[in-house]
């Protein structure tokens, strides 16, 4: 009797929950945390936008280390969260497992392709956005030397670096592009001390515009550039306001749009799986202009960047994708 009653209550609660709201969206951030002012924060902003527009609350989680990935994902799947969005390529291994175990749930992963019937893979053409900021960097540089600071040394970050180089070289064939990676472990996303030191080393070698694609490490790069009265370029989110007057522009990667779209599609019952590639054309990447950098960007720079943007959208200029052949031709 007791057991029947208990299961009755349990069923009642479950149905109530199911009717109360149709979807229970969830998002899991990558290492670096949701307030990294960069990649994860963009994802967070997308989720917040969804919440404020629809009034549907979402669950989120910040992992503290790599071993928590599968556990966190399974926990969310077990609780019936749907859809579950994962920010970051590092989730692929965990997702491949869990996607099979919960075929009824929808998943979305950003920055990685996971080939499962219930997974939407969102990837960006970072090389195109990086190309644009490269064009601007080459125009803004007085020394003819610009540089790049990457986070963890992985093909995805090389993709940023390669696009940037392409943009610089297309604008000024004589330019010199220095590049350095912070490290080879995930800690490299969160080491502003080392980021600052790399930036200083590059400035000593003549660089006066530094593009940082390094998550939390990038904050140290921006700081070092501001201290030395040089220019930096932010990444993922609009970082122009972090060191106003010293951030030339930011390469926007609309992770927020990807998250928002995934949640919205699920809410409308139109969640599509498969690969979703967002480039300049789709508005997935761009460069940032606002009050903080409008005095830094001259008309000449803006015209050059806009021209490059139009060429890429038209297909006149094809920016090389490092991940297609693991090489950079520029």
């Amino acid at each position, binding site marked *: 009797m007791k057991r029947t009653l208990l299961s009755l209550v349990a069923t009642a609660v479950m149905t109530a929950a199911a009717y109360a709201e149709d979807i229970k969206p969830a998002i899991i951030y990558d290492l670096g*945390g*949701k*307030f*990294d002012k960069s990649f994860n924060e963009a994802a967070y902003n997308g989720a917040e936008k969804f919440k404020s527009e629809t009034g549907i609350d979402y669950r989120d989680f*910040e992992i503290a280390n790599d071993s928590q990935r599968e556990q966190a994902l399974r926990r969310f799947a077990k609780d019936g969260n749907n859809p579950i969005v994962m920010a970051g390529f590092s989730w692929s291994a965990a997702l491949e497992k869990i996607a099979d175990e919960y075929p009824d749930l929808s998943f979305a992963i950003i920055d990685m392709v996971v080939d499962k019937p219930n997974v939407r893979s969102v990837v960006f053409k970072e090389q195109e956005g990086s190309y644009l900021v490269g064009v601007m960097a080459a125009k803004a540089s007085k020394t003819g030397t610009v540089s790049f600071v990457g986070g963890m*040394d992985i093909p995805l970050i090389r993709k940023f670096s390669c696009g940037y180089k392409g943009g610089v070289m297309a604008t000024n064939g004589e330019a010199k592009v*220095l*590049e*350095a*990676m912070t*490290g*080879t472990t995930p*800690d490299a996303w*969160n*080491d*502003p*001390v*080392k980021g*600052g*030191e*790399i930036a*200083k*080393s590059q400035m*000593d*070698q003549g660089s006066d515009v530094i593009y940082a694609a390094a998550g*939390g490490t990038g*904050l*140290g790069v921006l*700081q070092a550039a501001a201290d030395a009265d040089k220019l930096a370029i932010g990444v993922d989110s609009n970082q122009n306001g*972090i060191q106003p007057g010293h951030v030339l522009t930011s390469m926007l990667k609309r992770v927020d749009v990807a998250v928002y779209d995934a949640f919205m599609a699920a809410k409308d019952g139109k969640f599509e799986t498969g690969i979703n590639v967002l480039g300049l054309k789709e508005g997935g990447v761009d460069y940032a202009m606002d009050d903080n950098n409008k005095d830094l960007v001259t008309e000449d720079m803006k015209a050059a960047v806009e021209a490059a943007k139009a060429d890429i959208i038209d297909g006149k200029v094809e920016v090389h994708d490092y991940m297609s052949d693991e090489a950079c031709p520029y």
Partner: protein
Amino acid sequence: MEFLDTLIVLLQSTIRVSVPLILAALAGLYSERSGVFDIGLEGKMLGGAFAAGAVAAITGSAWLGVLAAIVVAVALALVHGFASITQRGNQIVSGVAINFIAAGATVILGQAWFHQGGRTPPLSGGARFTTIDLPFAAELADVPVVGAIYTNLLSGHYTLTYIAFALVPFTWWVLFRTRFGLRLRAVGENPGAVDTAGISVIWLRYRAVICCGILTGIAGAYLSLAMTAGFVKGMTAGKGFIALAALIFAKWKPVSVMYACLLFGFLDALSIRMQGHRLPLIGEVPVQFMQALPYVLTVVLLAGFIGRAIPPKAGGTPYVKER
């Protein structure tokens, strides 16, 4: 000339990155020479960095930040002292616990107070340290070689940098030329003898641990107030452990500690500088190799070149008055 310029820039970077190592390693020196092993240097530095970032952000004063860092690091050091001296617990376990507490507490408190994901607000103006130029630096800049070394290498560092380097001879003097130093070393080698002489082993060790706290606090403040502008979670990134390695490497001697830290710092600076550069004959050296180099060299040097490193005899064992 170009080679000299490159070298100077490289050495300047070396000085910047080795300061926290020197401070932390000297901190470990006081503690371990008195017989208290301290694996919690990392945690104390992190606690100090957080306290410095938080207090500097609120008060707008970098020096108050340093003071707060010292207070927090000494408090953590006293916890370690209480566990391992008074309670005679395992010093390694207590040290590891300090590291975990600091790693977790800094993020939680930071999130609760500032709502920026465990970071402290970015600092500017008087809330952080700026570099100072030594007198006549600008005038001497044009003198060949000497001018370049003076202006670019010796001048233009943070106050804490000069303090750190001044602490090296100071520590040597304290340990080897004062009564306190003699007793401190004795208590690490043979606490029984010190006790027989009527000196309190417990109180001596506590004082050593407090010295350790003060120095790790300064090291933490250097990270969050000088090298960057604000605390970021886990910003020590293993520096406490590298300092510990440097301490062993230098066989627990202050001046050698400085050289060991400078060597580690130099390798770090070199690995940053060498990325993407072509060397004659070899071509471009892979990033991974350059980044592994400090560790490889440590192992090689420790294995074959510097001989045995013998720790203080009574290190790691709590003192029991009567058996």
